[in-house]
């Protein structure tokens, strides 16, 4: 069994896509800060990027229940174009390891101290021959507000 440092939170896994432990976000009340979450896709699989090249494909999406913080924006990695046997045109996909950054804002009246906020990553993965139903994995982010 792996033991995580206290600043790292356990993360979700689908078997194909795993969220890696994220470093604790330190933020001052009344200011903004960014947090990066890293994900690892099993070799041989891809997931659609946040901006799929075909209308029918389900985009990668990270959402947060960020209370007491606010989400200012989510920055997704740019997909790379890759051709698969089942597609006539290359598709905008992510493979291997990738990061998603989120910019948070702590309102001035945010209670100081530790918090944990929860995110959900929805994705849809395929191999060259097989696709898997859309799945959602949980992401926990430890936050320290000063």
């Amino acid at each position, binding site marked *: 069994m792996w033991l995580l440092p206290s600043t790292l939170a356990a993360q979700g896994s689908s078997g194909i896509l795993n969220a890696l432990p994220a470093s604790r976000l330190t933020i001052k009340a009344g200011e903004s800060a960014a947090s990066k979450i890293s994900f690892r896709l099993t070799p041989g699989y891809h997931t659609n990027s946040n901006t799929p090249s075909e209308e029918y*494909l389900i985009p990668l999406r990270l959402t947060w229940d960020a209370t007491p913080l606010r989400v200012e924006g989510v920055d997704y990695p740019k997909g790379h174009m890759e051709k698969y046997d*089942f597609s006539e045109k290359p598709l905008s996909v992510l493979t291997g390891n990738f990061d998603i950054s989120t910019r948070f804002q702590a309102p001035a009246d945010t209670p100081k101290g530790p918090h944990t906020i929860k995110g959900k990553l929805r994705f849809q993965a395929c191999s*060259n021959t*097989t*696709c*898997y*139903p859309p799945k959602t994995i949980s992401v926990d982010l430890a936050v320290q507000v000063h």
Partner: protein
Amino acid sequence: MNSVSTHQTRMALAAALAFVGIACSTSSPVRAAVKAEKDRKNAPGFALKDSMGRTVNLSDYKGKVVLLNFWATWCGPCKLEIPWFMEFEQKYKDNGLAVLGVSLDEEGWDVVKPYLERTKINYRILLGDDAVAQMYGGVDALPSSFIIDREGRIAAVHIGLVSKSEYQKDLDALLGLNGKKSAAGFPMPAVVAPALHLGGAR
């Protein structure tokens, strides 16, 4: 065994089967994946709605060969197969083939009906649910196709994208069309080249 490791085990098995499929395809012609009659198990019965709201029972198709295909609108490999299945439906309908597509789209008819209107699929599409998927082994990967013989038994299973010629061989065997013309008058191909052979059959 937890769900993650179960899933990983399934993926490893699927990868191994796919590898065997690829290895076989490089040295031998495409062979039908049809099981011997003694090894076939009864296809689980179901009652699902079609796009017109009619209830369709699998038992309605007893006496026919059924190509039961689980698919979804977000599944690229599924979309590659659909024109093949439309062709099979047209060519072999009079020989006793019925293609049934079972959509596993979570959003249901809201996304499936517009797709049907665009693609003019000529075979029956049903809306699946978890219960039916579970009866057919979970259907965790798409496309998944089950070819059911005239006695209602599962004769062949294809998980993931396989070549059109594999389906052709299976249907030839189950419809008794080897070396014959289809009832619709289409000549049967003497040799079917494997255009694609990447997925695993189980």
